[in-house]
């Protein structure tokens, strides 16, 4: 007997709560030799900007205990290529298609999202972790004002369900979450990567050519879980949790902390089948616990 694993996030129905995280699954074409894209509840596409970008110099990848660093730096083909070159195929192959949008200026965000508004993309995820050029390169998402400004600008030009992706590199993520909610975000996703570094002790050089990079993978899971729990308790909109999820048990923890759906990134590099294993594990959990919907467990952690 197969269970209905669907969840609804900001009014959008996902056939199952497992979404490929932005930047780890490209535009959905790279793993189709292994299994079809429609096995996943959805895909958040690689962070896309108004104009094409070449990203940072290599090396862009470093390993860490139970995790990794990346300094890819938003290499992407630009919003027009996304819309004409990738979106039609994504819509054919996949379930919920989420565009992940980044920008250096408010106008970049505005124009990119305007172009998406008339497409059949299902959802827009705003990556506010990228540098704000006007503010000396600090990320939009590290201040309430910056995060609110991006959300407000984008909200004004789209009716698409809007998910704002929070950076964990802040003193109080709850304040940022509330600021974004107040400007009309339909849901939140978190966490983006934590800023990290590794040094090659033989050369005394950082392994990443960019010196520092985003930290992800199983090592960050407890931090992500804590932040999702804090944010989910503080806002009324839906929350999508990510950061180090590797197993169905991790996904269940994340949902109990308050996430309605989850994203997986780094785990896919270790095992490309891991999202499918999580989906199977969730179904088994539903059967064992006699659940009719996974939403029954969302936010059910009972804190001491």
């Amino acid at each position, binding site marked *: 007997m197969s269970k209905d694993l669907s969840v609804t996030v900001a009014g959008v129905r996902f056939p199952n709560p497992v979404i490929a995280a932005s*930047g*780890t*699954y*490209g535009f959905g*074409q*790279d*793993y189709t*030799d*292994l299994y079809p894209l429609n096995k996943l509840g959805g895909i958040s596409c*690689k962070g896309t900007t108004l104009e094409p970008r*070449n*990203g940072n*110099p*290599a*090396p*862009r*990848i*470093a*390993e*860490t205990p*139970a*995790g*990794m660093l*990346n300094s*890819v730096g938003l*290499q992407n083909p630009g919003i027009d290529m996304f819309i004409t070159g990738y979106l039609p195929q994504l819509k054919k192959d996949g379930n919920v298609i989420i565009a992940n949008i980044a920008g250096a200026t408010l106008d970049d965000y505005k124009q990119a999202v305007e172009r998406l508004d008339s497409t059949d993309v299902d959802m827009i995820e705003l990556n506010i972790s990228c540098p704000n050029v006007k503010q000396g390169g600090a990320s939009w998402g590290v201040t309430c004002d910056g995060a609110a400004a991006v959300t407000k600008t984008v909200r004004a030009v789209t009716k698409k369900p809007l998910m704002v992706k929070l950076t964990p590199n802040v003193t109080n993520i709850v304040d940022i979450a509330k600021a974004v909610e107040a400007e009309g975000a339909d849901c939140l996703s978190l966490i983006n990567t934590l800023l990290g570094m590794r040094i090659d002790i033989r050369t005394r050089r950082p*392994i990443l050519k960019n010196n520092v990079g985003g930290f992800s*993978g*199983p090592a960050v899971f407890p931090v992500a879980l804590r932040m999702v729990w804090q944010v989910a308790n503080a806002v009324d909109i839906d929350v999508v949790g990510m950061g180090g999820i590797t197993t169905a048990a991790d996904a269940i923890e994340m949902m109990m902390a308050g996430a309605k759906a989850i994203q997986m990134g*780094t785990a*896919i*590099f*270790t*095992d*490309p*089948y891991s999202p499918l294993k999580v989906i199977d594990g969730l179904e088994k959990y539903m059967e064992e616990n006699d659940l009719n919907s996974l939403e029954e467990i969302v936010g059910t952690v009972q804190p001491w």
Partner: protein
Amino acid sequence: MAFFCDEFPIVERSEIASGIFSYVIHCPSVALAAKAGQFVHIRAEGYTLRRPISICEINREKGTIRIVFEVRGNGTDKLSQLEAGKKMDMIAPLGNGFTIKEIPSDKTVIVIGGGIGVPPMLGTAAEYTDNKVKAVLGFRNKDRVILEEDFKRVGAETAVCTDDGSYGEKGLVTFPLIEELERGKTAMIYACGPTPMLKAVINTARVYNIPCEVSLEQRMACGVGACVGCACNIRKGGRDFVLRVCKDGPVFKAEEVVL
């Protein structure tokens, strides 16, 4: 270019030089699809990222591939502990291999390998019949020399160089390369090895105006083209591109590579 991700049985394991291991893996589907110059992406238990290792030889009849790798850090150390009979978790075959060409009967090709860049050149040499391929292999010293007999077995006329002269010719692979090019019989050059060696080979190929392909290395996450982690700079038709070593490479035309 289909690839697979599975656990495949290890048929044979041996240490062919100190800290350098050879594995034969039974994976008929992979062997059938594989081309010389492609690589496999191996999961090392307990590590987040897989390790990219070149395909060294392909045996389609037996349904096996061979890989040869050096223990560099923790991940390759872990992999080297896998015994015959155990399984290797691989995504394979990945990337684009070397272009194998029909060449005139009076011409030859040259394969050049440096250090741990030697293994993929063996499978490439094996694509050409006897007397059609010259191999030039460079190593740090006598203790690091690997696969020389294997190159001879596949019919390659083989020259070995070491940096310190403890075995074969002393010096860089470019000396035997130039000697061979001077004979005017070379149709194509293939190379894999450390960046300084690749630069020298690329320059030499340009001077002699011989088509050349090189295999690049970069740190990888996905290995399949999804994460854009393995960037390399490529110049085509006067325009610069940032491409992926794993999917657009690892083999590139020498004249397009910006090192």
